[in-house]
């Protein structure tokens, strides 16, 4: 029985990076078609992952053909450009383009129908509109503008550089933690395993990005000549992902803070989450005039029932204090009764001793 494990998407990306490293580390023009095929075989074999034999054969054939083409191009066209200093950028571009094409084709072949096996991968439906609908629904719940804009920037930059799949989840998680004022090395981070959870979220989101790009934006890009609309749609998908990130971060930050017995940590998380108040609705209650403004603002806000809820919480908290006081009194009364019972037993024993002596 074959003990090899199944590779997930990120395993495959890493593996293909090993087979076809960046140009600075590897001279493709020095590698014969069969040499490159052999390299592919070796990396697949040493990876320990299972791939269908038929898939591997197709990829071998593809690599061989593609490398032959590169050789031909080199001899027919590219070499002349290479010799011409002015066309050197074009020469580099042609080589890089060829490598990118090969990489993408191999990744696609190896991940064929296997992406659904990625653990915790949420969107298994093949209907893109359903995926977008779900994402939008979640996005609509997100309100934290600061986090949104920050992560939008991050993802937009990566989208624009067409490098979404190469985001280092660990680095991005560190960035986000630092953004919230937590050093990745702080014990608090270790305690709550925030980074680990964030990385899980980021991995999932990167998969979402890839799916959106491939299933929705890819065909859209090929079908339209309206680049403004394409860019607008792309921004929309990035916003959706951003909303998801925000939602998850908020959930993680708050769910890890168990208020009971961890008040300081809870306060810390709340404070760091709101460390920059510039984009948030903040008002300090100092005197009657400022509180007037505050109430007016809040009553115009859809979240104004928070006041009522906070009032209810106060009443509950006061009720809890009353209950504690009542319990204190009852405990004292109980102790008093115990003491009285003990005293009575002593009296009984003394009386019993006296009776025994008199007998």
């Amino acid at each position, binding site marked *: 029985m074959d003990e090899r494990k199944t590779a997930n998407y990120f395993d495959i990306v890493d593996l293909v990076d090993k087979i076809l490293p960046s140009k600075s580390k590897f001279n493709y023009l020095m590698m014969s078609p069969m040499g490159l095929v052999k390299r592919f075989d070796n990396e697949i074999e040493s990876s320990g992952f299972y791939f269908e034999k038929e898939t591997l054969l197709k990829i071998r054939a593809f690599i061989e053909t593609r490398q032959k083409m590169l050789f031909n191009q080199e001899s027919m066209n590219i070499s002349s450009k290479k010799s011409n200093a002015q066309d050197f950028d074009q020469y580099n571009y042609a080589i890089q383009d060829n490598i990118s094409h090969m990489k993408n084709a191999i990744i696609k072949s190896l991940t064929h129908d296997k992406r659904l096996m990625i653990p915790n991968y949420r969107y298994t439906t093949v209907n893109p509109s359903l995926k977008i609908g779900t994402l939008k629904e979640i996005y609509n719940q997100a*309100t*934290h503008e600061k986090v949104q804009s920050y992560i939008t920037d991050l993802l937009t930059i990566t989208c624009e550089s067409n490098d979404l799949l190469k985001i280092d989840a660990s680095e991005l998680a560190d960035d986000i933690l630092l953004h919230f004022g937590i050093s990745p090395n702080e014990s608090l981070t270790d305690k709550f395993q925030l980074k680990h959870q964030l990385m899980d979220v980021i991995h999932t989101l990167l998969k979402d990005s890839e799916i959106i790009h491939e299933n929705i934006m890819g065909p859209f890009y090929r079908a339209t000549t309206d680049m403004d609309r394409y860019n607008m749609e792309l921004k929309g998908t990035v916003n959706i992902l951003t909303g998801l990130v925000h939602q998850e971060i*908020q959930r993680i930050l*708050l769910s890890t*803070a168990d*208020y*009971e017995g961890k*008040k300081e940590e*809870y*306060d810390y998380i*709340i404070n760091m989450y*709101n460390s920059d*108040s510039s984009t*948030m*609705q*903040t*008002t*300090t*209650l100092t005197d*009657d005039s400022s*509180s*007037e403004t*505050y*109430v007016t603002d809040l*009553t115009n*806000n859809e*979240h*104004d*029932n*928070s*006041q*009522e*809820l*906070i*009032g*209810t*919480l*106060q009443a*509950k*908290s006061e009720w*809890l204090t009353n*209950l*504690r006081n*009542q*319990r204190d009194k*009852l*405990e004292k*009364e*109980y102790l008093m*009764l*115990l003491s*009285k*019972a003990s005293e*009575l*037993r002593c*009296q*009984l024993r003394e*009386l*019993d001793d006296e*009776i025994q002596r008199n007998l």
Partner: protein
Amino acid sequence: MVSNMNNKEVRESYQFFKDNYNIDFSKLSPNVTRQAIDLINKKLDEKIAEEERKIADLLKMISNEHAKIIELNDCLRKMES
């Protein structure tokens, strides 16, 4: 939903949580406020339930102790007589 609380009550509520829980609701975003409210509400419910259970236990123990004291007093009276 429009708040029925007046300014003074709102201010007092916020001050109450600032003093007792070190939470300044006036500085939290609406979203975080809602989650903080849910969290505190849940904990308060748990604490209230725990206190009520303790009080019920104490009342039962007090009742038992009262019964024992009555019994002991009866014994004492009988022995003294």
